[in-house]
């Protein structure tokens, strides 16, 4: 790796991803830490951990079979369902919660766990699908001959499980940091509070930011405890499922069982994606007050008219963040993977920007950038771009690191022996070889930036984003307008991945 290039990337990561966290944590003193050790906080934290574990378990139970069925079997329409399976993670969880709360009477902790489990199952499904595809074809054929499908699955599950558990750790992290869904889902019936509520309330009640930051530390610790083993499992999953003389496995024939399997796939997609989307379509057409195509047309026209500038802002900021994150992710991810033990030791640092609550990261952004020398950046759209890039850079780094692990080191060695320098090797050899993962990592940063609200709301540029307008409209009960605008956001979030899938010759790799 080119040292100047790597140094520049490390400095950029430290500035965009770590510095906002460091300036906030520096404000915490001993008295602030003492205040967070109350029994009430511990009870909230325990409940939050249970919620995360429950959501991760649901994601595992649903995601592993889903990933297996759409990636490896002859379930009718499997390629289509595989693409559709990503939808739940693209929808804002609150939209899913609002849809289901309007249709069922299930409330409280169980409902919250179900919603967050279903919103995060695509993570497990994606990783499981890829792990099932990395099983060696000859090994599988031997298992099939020895004991049929059951024996093959028994042999493959230990190979797939590290990948699935890695994704489940991320599902856990997403679940424990969400406070909008638990709050909304327990609006009717007994209240079910989580620790993220405590953090939000602390920003209002604390006399100084130090104690508010301190209130976030237990959740940061819980997040770190989940992400640390995730990194280890990722490493194992990459090591165990690939051998040098690899042969891709064939499609498994399920016979009659492909119909019940299809029913399972459709049921999962129906609950997690089609129903919430269907409800948005219904509400955009007038909903309970009378659905009609004319109403729907009017809602979309109004959403486009009022939200056009906001959509343009969001798309610009999200694209800007992705464009910054991708080259940094490629350089850092490649270096992380190729530097062996040192890379493994430094990997937890990469996770810091996503391990802290969004509000803390956003205020850290103000503290870092709102100075005379950087005022022009702070006042402009750059601020939103830099904030998004810093916050979501870990996904780009990990994604490129995982793809680098799959790349035969001998290819790079050959280029080196032929006289290609480190920068040239990265641009001409590694970059093109990892194109699906590089594009995929940019796509993840783009999608998350489009959806981001909590951190962005604190900086001036975020006023013009589409999520800002969407959540303001929710306040006024403009269900048709909100639904139409939410569907437009979903369309723009889905579009890049859909275009790649339709027109690119190589499969998109969108997660680490």
């Amino acid at each position, binding site marked *: 790796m080119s040292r100047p290039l790597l140094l520049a990337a490390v400095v950029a990561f430290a500035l965009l991803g770590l510095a906002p966290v460091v300036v906030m944590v520096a404000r915490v003193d001993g008295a602030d830490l003492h205040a967070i050790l109350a029994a009430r906080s511990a009870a909230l934290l325990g409940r939050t951990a249970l919620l995360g574990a429950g959501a991760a378990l649901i994601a595992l139970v649903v995601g592993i079979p889903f990933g297996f069925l759409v990636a490896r079997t002859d379930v009718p329409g499997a390629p289509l369902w595989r693409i559709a399976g990503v939808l739940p993670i693209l929808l804002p969880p609150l939209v899913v919660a609002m849809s289901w709360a309007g249709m069922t009477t299930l409330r409280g902790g169980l409902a919250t766990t179900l919603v967050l489990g279903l919103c995060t199952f695509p993570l497990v499904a994606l990783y499981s699908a890829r792990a099932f595809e990395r099983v060696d074809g000859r090994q599988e054929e031997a298992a099939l001959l020895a004991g049929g499908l059951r024996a093959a699955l028994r042999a493959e599950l230990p190979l797939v499980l590290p990948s699935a558990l890695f994704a489940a750790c991320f599902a856990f992290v997403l679940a424990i940091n969400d406070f909008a869904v638990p709050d909304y889902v327990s609006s009717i019936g007994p209240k079910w509070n989580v620790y993220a509520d405590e953090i939000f309330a602390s920003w209002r009640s604390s006399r100084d930011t130090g104690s508010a930051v301190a209130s976030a530390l237990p959740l940061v610790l819980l997040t770190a405890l989940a992400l640390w083993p995730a990194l280890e499992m990722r490493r194992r999953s990459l090591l165990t499922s690939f051998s040098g003389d690899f042969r891709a496995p064939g499609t498994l024939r399920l016979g009659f069982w492909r119909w019940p399997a299809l029913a399972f796939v459709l049921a999962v997609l129906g609950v997690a994606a089609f129903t919430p989307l269907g409800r948005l379509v219904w509400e955009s057409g007038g909903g309970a007050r009378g659905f009609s195509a004319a109403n729907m047309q009017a809602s979309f026209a109004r959403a486009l008219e009022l939200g056009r500038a906001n959509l343009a802002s969001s798309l610009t900021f999200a694209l800007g963040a992705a464009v910054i994150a991708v080259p940094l992710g490629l350089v850092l991810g490649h270096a992380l993977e190729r530097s062996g033990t040192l890379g493994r030791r430094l990997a937890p640092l990469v996770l810091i920007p996503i391990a802290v609550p969004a509000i803390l990261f956003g205020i850290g952004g103000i503290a870092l950038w709102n100075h005379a020398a950087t*005022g022009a950046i702070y006042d402009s759209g*750059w601020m939103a771009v830099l904030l998004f890039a810093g916050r979501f850079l870990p996904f780009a780094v990990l994604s490129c690191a995982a793809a680098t692990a799959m790349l035969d080191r001998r290819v790079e060695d050959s280029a080196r022996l032929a006289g290609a320098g480190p920068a040239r090797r990265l641009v001409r050899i590694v970059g093109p070889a990892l194109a699906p993962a590089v594009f995929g990592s940019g796509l993840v940063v783009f999608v998350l930036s489009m959806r981001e609200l909590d951190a962005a709301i*604190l900086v001036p540029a975020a006023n013009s984003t589409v999520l800002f307008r969407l959540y303001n409209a929710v306040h*006024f009960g403009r269900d048709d307008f909100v639904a139409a605008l939410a569907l437009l956001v979903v369309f723009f979030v889905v579009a890049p991945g859909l275009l790649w899938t339709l027109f690119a010759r190589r499969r998109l790799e969108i997660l680490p």
Partner: protein
Amino acid sequence: MRLLLSPSLLVLLGLAGCARNPDLVIYCSLDQEFSEELILRFARESGLEVRAEYDIEANKNVGLATRIREEAGSRPRCDVFWSNECAQVVALGEEGLLQTYDSPSARDIPADFRDPEHRWTGFAARARVLIVNTQLVPPDQIVSMWDLFDPRWKGQVAMARPLAGTTNTHMTALYLALGEKEALRYVETAARLAQDGSLNLVTGNAHVMRLVRDGQAAFGWTDSDDFNVAREAGFPVAAVYPDRDGVGTLLIPNTVCILASAPRAEAARRFVDWILRPEIEAELARSRSAQIPVRANVPRPAHVVGPDAFRAMKVDGREVGRTVRQRTAELQELFLK
């Protein structure tokens, strides 16, 4: 890589044009839907380049107030804070973050809505009302804030979690209006009933409005502007201004103030003079938010009640602002379990 560099250059060039130097920066937590048009009109009339930045309902005023505090310590950029309530503004004043300005437009605003030290001025208020679904309960059966705890309505009543927004201000004000013991009884009862589901504790006031409007709850606490949104949409709802014979109804005014560190103080004063005019109060009364003018002589539509239609809660807004943080910490102990 070339493919990546081309869009990156385009994006970066595009963003470079985003920063402009405005003549006035306004932070506004009154809903953008109601405030944006007024601010744009001021910009047209004054010829100033105005940059307005808004908060969202989910943030409950915390976003802008946090940003003001944070920026004050590094590079102040906000000139005017137009808040949709008073507690955060009073707190900012107590922290020394506001400058004094006695606007000539505020001379006829009642003293209850003005800071004696002229750090902020209140105008165009919202009332804390009980929104009632008239198909589920006759509005005349609901007269008091204590009706929320009547076993007859178990599981059919709602309020927002009082840790932010106007519900937080409301509960803080109750300590001053009812006294420590009665107020504590009220909030403790609410917290206890929320734990067993007898009282539905929801995300915000707009959510209470939606539950009641859709018949999922019979009645609950909300703001008069949220009630008006449901009324205008034709839902079977009524607003009860409770406790005419008791503690009364809390009025929460918009407040406007100039930051102590305002980089463009002269333009800020022009805006404050403009927004505090009676015509603006009349306009806010006619808008969808149906704000209640604090001046008795300002014309208002029939659906916007006058001061004779309810008993106003007697509380000192400054004291509410001074105590809101401490009360929020206490409410956190009660409601976050």
